């Protein structure tokens, strides 16, 4: 309780932080990763980088929208069930507001030239943000040659085949267990 960070994870703060993240995520769950790292890992230190990556890995294999699953994981990690609910509601609230506004008053919003140019710029920026985040993740996730091999195989499978990501994620987990167990045996 002496930890000063303890005070930052009130339910309201969780809700507002995830609201902010939902507001500026353009694209799917992975587009949220750069801002999530900034807010959750660096600013509030609610979870370490590896933990966030683990949440993404598990979310990939669970039903539901990845961004929401990751939000619930982080919310639950800090404040149990109410935290999970606050984070989930936070990340969906801006969608409800913005989409309702567009559906109600802005006909042809998506065809507006200004909107299209702005989005084209944003999508390039999202690429750069994800690339930068990936470089940070790389150090935390690919630690040796077998890890690098898993990374290569998964990238190739996901890029060139239409294998379900669940299958890929489950296979990677099994590989991890087999490799580490084989190493322990070898060390004995």
């Amino acid at each position: 309780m002496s930890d000063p960070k303890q005070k930052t994870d009130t339910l309201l703060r969780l809700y507002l932080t995830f609201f902010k993240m939902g507001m500026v995520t353009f694209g799917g769950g992975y587009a949220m990763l750069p801002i999530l790292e900034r807010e959750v890992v660096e600013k509030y230190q609610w979870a370490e980088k590896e933990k966030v990556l683990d949440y993404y890995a598990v979310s990939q294999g669970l039903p539901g929208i990845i961004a929401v699953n990751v939000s619930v994981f982080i919310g639950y990690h800090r404040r149990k069930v109410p935290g999970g609910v606050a984070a989930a509601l936070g990340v969906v609230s801006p969608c409800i507001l913005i989409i309702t506004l567009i559906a109600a008053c802005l006909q042809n919003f998506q065809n507006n030239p200004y909107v299209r140019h702005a989005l084209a710029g944003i999508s390039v920026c999202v690429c750069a943000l994800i690339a930068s985040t990936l470089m940070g993740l790389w150090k935390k996730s690919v630690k040796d040659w077998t890890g690098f091999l898993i990374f290569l195989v998964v990238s190739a499978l996901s890029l060139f085949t239409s294998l379900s990501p669940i299958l890929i994620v489950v296979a990677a987990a099994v590989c991890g267990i087999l490799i580490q167990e084989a190493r322990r045996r070898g060390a004995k």
Partner: protein
Amino acid sequence: MIYLQLFWEFLKIGLFAVGGGMATIPFLEHLSQSSGWYPLSFITDMIAISESTPGPIGINMATYVGYNVGGLPGGVIATLGVVLPSMVIVTIVSRYLEKFNGNRLVDSAFYGLRPAVTGLILVAGLTVVQTSFFHVYELADFARLTEVLDWRKLLFFGIMFFAIRKFNKHPIFYIAVAAVIGIVFQF
């Protein structure tokens, strides 16, 4: 009772759509046919709007359909429906994950999962690159690569990447700058 139906239909989508927002599309196509709430052509509009607004795509689509079927309460109810399974399932999984924290097998599983998910993120990033740097969606002929590649965007990407690594400002800052640059240079 349309709200109850909306809630139920989107609850099912949240429960069965595995793999993120785009995985909900086949379900929305099915829902279009089974409920008659919206025509199939509506889905293309919906994807376009979901992609041009902030927020996870899966959520945007739920809100959009819900709003068009049942107004503001419809939008709220459909969104809550799609989110509820996540809340329940992730809470249960979280409980187990924290319980097995430090467990040898779980740690070993994550040893394999971390590089795997890094690969998945890389590929997700490449998909965004494909749609944002090239004038065509499917690259049919590699010899014509230089014709379809948007060089201004590639240059902008380089500058952005450098700025992100160098200045470490908040991602929101870069997103706002990129929107302005997109409008000014007519990307």
